[in-house]
């Protein structure tokens, strides 16, 4: 294992080209359930980020000591232990958010994006690459969560960053941006169907951007060489 590790590629994988939420479609349960507002999405996203990073680190450290046969139970135990830590921390410091997110904090254990990274990456790589992978995957997941949360909050209640004091303390109470005043509220966006719709549109948007980039690269590759000596042929070419 003397080859150099491409950290840029690892981060790009997590944040964009292999994004857990938009490409792998893993961890859809929290993705759909708690993204009714930015603060909920951010809370669960941060918790997931911490768990996936630290579990990647732990799994990478013990990867040589755990045999193949028992690796999955071992990984799950590690993730469960870390999730319990996060749950207790949130219970202690952000109690209101903790009670809003409810069952979805312990359910981080079952987020297959985390177990997937532990098994697919951390158990085969050294500490530093695994940490970077965990960070970028967690960030990728967090960003999508916050994006969906922002869109649903905006459509559903016409505000942005409401109730941020649940996460950032009393100083954040005034962060609420009322985008539309006297807004009726497009309730479907906050209800479960809205989560599916917004997630679907985000996936479509990502695919559109990707195909646009691809087309541009394709066009660059096949640029005609100036002054080519193409011989004009007439008649049938065999």
């Amino acid at each position, binding site marked *: 294992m003397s080859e150099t590790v491409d950290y840029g590629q690892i981060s790009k994988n997590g944040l964009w080209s292999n994004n857990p939420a938009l490409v792998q479609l893993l961890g859809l349960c929290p993705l759909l359930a708690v993204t009714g507002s930015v603060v909920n999405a951010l809370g669960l996203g941060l918790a997931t980020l911490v768990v996936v990073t630290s579990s990647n680190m732990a799994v990478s450290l013990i990867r040589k000591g755990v045999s193949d046969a028992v690796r999955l139970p071992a990984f799950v135990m590690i993730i469960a232990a870390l999730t319990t830590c996060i749950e207790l921390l949130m219970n202690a410091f952000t109690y209101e958010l903790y009670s809003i997110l409810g069952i979805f904090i312990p359910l981080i254990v079952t987020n297959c994006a985390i177990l997937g990274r532990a098994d697919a990456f951390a158990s085969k790589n050294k500490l530093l690459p695994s940490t970077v992978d965990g960070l970028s995957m967690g960030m990728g997941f967090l960003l999508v969560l916050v994006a969906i949360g922002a869109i649903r909050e905006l459509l559903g209640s016409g505000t942005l960053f409401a109730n941020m004091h649940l996460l950032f303390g009393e100083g954040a109470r005034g962060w609420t941006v009322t985008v539309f005043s006297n807004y*009726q*509220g*497009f*309730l*479907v*966006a906050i*209800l479960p169907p809205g989560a599916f*719709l917004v997630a679907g549109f985000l996936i479509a948007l990502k695919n559109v951007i990707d195909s646009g980039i691809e087309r541009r690269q394709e066009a660059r590759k096949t640029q005609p060489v100036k002054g080519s000596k193409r011989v004009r042929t007439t008649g049938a070419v065999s």
Partner: protein
Amino acid sequence: MLRVSSPHTHIRRDTGQIMRLVLVATVPGLLALTLFFGWGSLFNVALACITAVLCEALVMKLRRRPVMFYLRDCTALVTGVLLGMALPPYCPWWLVVVGSMTAIILAKQLYGGMGFNPFNPAMVGYVVLLISFPVPITQWAAPAGVLADQVGFIEGMRQIWAGVPIDGYTAATPLDVLSQNTSVLMEDLYQTDPTLSTGLWAGAGWEWVNIGFLLGGLFLLYQRVFTWHAPVSMLVTLTIMAALFYDGGSSNSGGSPLLHLLSGATMLGAFFILTDPVTSAVSNRGRLVCGVLVGVLLYVMRHWSNYPDAIAFAVLLMNFAAPFIDYYTVPRTYGHKKSRSALDKGEQ
């Protein structure tokens, strides 16, 4: 003379012709709506149609398909008309526009356009509005004769475009009255409620709207646009359900069969929504099953849920189940003794 062998049947109509027949058939119902509830429904229909056609053209442009070819089949117009008639008269303009956009873009074009949508677009648009904006969508205008004067043009326009409320133009629909008053005598209800007391059978206005849609439906049936199976089985089931749970005395027991048949969106649902050729079951037996289940669901939701009417929910649920129903009701093919379900494997 051309000598040809069987089959001798040929395609008589294309989609556009069928859809134009459906549009013609909505005229009696729309006329009754306009006569009894004012010009609001006509306005809704016009606005919903314009939005639907514009959205359809936009998506066709984006998908690089021939725009005029798809507009000429009139399916967007039918969706607009059905949605416009389902929405309450004089509702705010954005309600109609959002509903129509949802119907065409979300429920129809995102699934692949005409023929590929699993759910009836107009009903998806209606349900999205019903869930999102429960207050404005349940404000039905009072039928003519119940209140002193009809809504005028100026004040109607001001409510639609600027949200300036009209004073007391609404009245509870017969189904609203039934679901809100749970422990009175039916007879009292018929005497005290203005809508029910001025009507002949099922509330002023509503009975004629339903009879209008029934006439339009019979016209379509006569033209063989659809078969009788789905609407008849739905209406018969609804009648049986209503008769079973009606005791004639207390309003706890649900309305009489006649009230259920001639109020709300019963006839519109039976003849114009349930018979959608794209989203309904395709075999005749499947349509019978579908109609029965819609009838049962409709009554159950009208009687025991918080919603006074439930055509949209019942039909959407059955749209969901239609492929499953088709799977078990494959018709007998010519040359075989009995019909087989799609489950049977073996000799083909």
